[in-house]
């Protein structure tokens, strides 16, 4: 009978090896919400408010103060600076968790300015390959780094928390969690946020 042991060991070892790791979804702290924005379109901005969530595009975003963030591809706007009349702006803080969020510091705010980006699907013909000047927040724009130096391009998530001031001067803490949807298709900005911060 002793000789049967190898026959038994192999299937047992194999079954152990095939057992999957359980996915440990860390406990979400209370008050933290999340959103996923479809940012695939090159030709439009998607508007978001911490009070209302996803919004219809305002007729004139530069004068409208209901929106707090806007998304276009990997670009992000706040409602302030070159983008709008609100008090919006953002700055990165050196932590990846929502625990012990520091006191907001208005002096560190980076407001929106003009950047160059594609507002049309770039194609190989060259005609649509012109980048145009639009207002956006360069600080929040660092949430994702896309390196075209290898094929396929590599995507690196910054993973840190951003302090974001809303249009009406409230504060939120935002951390981007993914650039893909559940089907691993790129062009979806997912983020968690704590709002408002008192």
């Amino acid at each position: 009978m002793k000789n049967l042991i190898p026959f038994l060991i192999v299937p047992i070892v194999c079954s152990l090896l095939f057992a999957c790791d359980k996915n440990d979804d860390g406990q979400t702290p209370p008050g933290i919400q999340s959103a996923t924005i479809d940012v695939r379109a090159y030709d439009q901005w998607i508007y978001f408010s911490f009070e209302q969530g996803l919004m219809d595009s305002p007729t004139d975003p530069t004068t409208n103060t209901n929106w707090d963030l806007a998304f276009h591809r990997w670009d992000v706007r706040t409602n302030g600076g070159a983008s709008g009349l609100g008090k919006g702006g953002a700055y990165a803080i050196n932590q990846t968790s929502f625990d012990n969020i520091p006191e907001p510091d208005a002096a560190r705010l980076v407001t929106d300015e003009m950047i160059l980006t594609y507002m049309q699907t770039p194609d190989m013909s060259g005609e649509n390959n012109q980048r145009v000047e639009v207002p956006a927040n360069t600080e929040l724009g660092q949430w994702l780094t896309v390196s075209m130096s290898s094929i396929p391009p590599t995507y690196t998530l910054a993973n840190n928390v951003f302090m974001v001031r809303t249009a009406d001067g409230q504060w939120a803490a935002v951390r981007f969690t993914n650039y893909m949807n559940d089907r691993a298709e790129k062009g979806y900005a997912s983020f968690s946020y704590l709002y408002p911060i008192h």
Partner: protein
Amino acid sequence: MSCCSLLVSFLSLLQPSDTVVLHGQVTDPAGKPLQGAVITLQGTAKGCTTDAEGFFRLQSQYNDQKLSIRYIGYADCDTTVAARDATQPLKFTLHEQRLDMDEVVVTGTRTPRTLKNTPIITKVITAAEIRQTAPQSLIDVLQNELPGIEFTRTEGVTNSITFQGLDANYLLILVDGERLAGETSRSNPDFNRIDIDNIERIEVVKGAMSTLYGSGAVAGVVNIITRGADRPFGAGINAQYDSEGEQKYGFNVGTQLRKFSSYTSGVVRLKSAYTLHDRRPQTYYYEDGTAVTPDSTLSSVEIEGYRNFTLEERLGYRFSERFKASARGSFYQHERFNAGMVGDLKHDLYRDWNAHLSTEFTPSQDNRFELSYHFDNYTKYDKFLKLGETERNYRNLIHNPRLLFSSEALRNNTLVAGAEALVERLDTYQFADTVHGTTTWSLYVQDDYRLGQHWSFQGGLRLDHHSAYGLHLNPKLSAMAKAGSWTFRAGYAAGFRAPTLKELYTSWDHQGMFELVGNRNLRPEKSHHISASTEYARPSFNVSLSGYYNKIYDKISMLWNMANDTSYYANTSNASTAGFDIDLRARIGRHVTLRSSYAYVRDRQMLRGRNTSSTRPHSATIRIEYTFRIACCPFTAGLGGRILSKVDTYTLDTENDLLYRIRYPAYSIWKLNCSGQLPRGIRINVGIDNLLNYKPDNVTYNAGITRGTTFFASLSIALDELCNKKK
């Protein structure tokens, strides 16, 4: 016969028997006694060694005994001593081990021929050689034995093959002479499908082999011959583990009876995903002397991990001396994932199942008919982990019925003739909602005519009818001359590559940026291959030198339309490669064997007088093994390496209309290992891979895929020997 002796020994176990002392002498053919030869009772740990006069004494039971006689540098001797002879003095003669040129190969002619008589140089990688180097995958085996072959990461595709400067489209990989359906990407077959523990030998034939094997056999054919049962009962298990967590577990069970045989085998392999990072940014050297490092951030590539298994069954039945049938089938699943965020969301799932039915009819000794049907179904899926969904995005089917006739009825002729159909179906996300297929009907004949003792000539012709482009004729002509230890071969062979289903029918929009479209008017790529070789073979030394020139016409590549929004396939360019190979095998004394190969490839793809090819011109493989004994157990220590030369390649910077040069430095990867055959069918192998800790500076292109030095250990147990309870 061996079955009967097993029965006898089994019966004898049932009755008490007295012990006897087996005794005798071991000598070489000249009668010189061999000191230190090891005699063991098979399947037991019992054994002894011969003394200075070659004599031995070994206590055994009084019944039929199977003996193994081993002496380093001499061929193994396995024999059965009948109970009635057990008291007589025994005499065993061992022969010096030779480099085997009588080995039977099939690839060059589609019929069994001995290595020395095959009209085309065939390189054989034996199961013993594979086992000795403890490879993890087929890719390791091919890289360790074939210079001129490289598996690199190209444009996001892991394990893209290049062979003699040509890509996967031009090297045909076969398993038991049959095509593999499916590709992982860019026409690379799924090398992970092959269970390397199940390989009997690998035959590699360089040069165009399209006459016998059809499309794609342009630069050569790698034919993987799998193993069947060879004993009344055999079973084994094995495991391999390395310091990076790569694991392999396998089993096999086989039986070979008088009429019936069965062999079942399986393997599970695991590898974790990791990320390789550039150690230095890539620098572009422009013609005007400026050096530019375009992206200051270092690149990285995700190297996928996997969990996979293969299960295979083969059955054989011999109805009579003249008629036998066989069936085999296998199932394979490969789940591939990467270490980054994508790996948490999506895995790539590959599945394959295939079946092969064959009947062989031998009406007379000289004539043989083989009717076979091969079916292969390869599918790819996206597995979405969070959604719990699996979605198929690719399916490739092959049906391949064949009738093969071979005859030696005509004096001095060996004739092979075949008729077959190759039906292929492809369903991929790159097609617009339809399945596309092609059917190829083929007739081929190849004759080998021997003129006297020294000369032989081969001629072959293949006629294909392809459903997309119609008729194509493919000829071949070669000659072989033998004089003493020398063999000379020279020949011409046409080759061709039919446009693939993707090249014919793709219709795919790349996220609105551009479109990829196929071209239904494509013609096959054609090639002319000329080669010449000389081989010098002695019992302990064997060297060959072969040169070739390969010209490919009507190469299919992608072009952009005028509007620059659509890329389409067209027969555009010509290409040529040339090179030579040197192969060397030697036995040095009783203990040392050496095998080494060198390949030079001249691949010129000129642009404004500069070469844009990134093929490394020089490459070599070497392996030295030393065999020794510890107690009664044979051990082999081996050092193997592959060495690749640097290459400078030029690329056009279209924005500035300037050429720039990139240098891919030379590198070598070495493996040191030691294996031992312990009593009771236990075999161990431990070693160090990538001994010099080679890590490429730039990992994204044209570099070896390695994490640096790793340690490995493997264990295999022949259960039939382990369980054999002879006292």
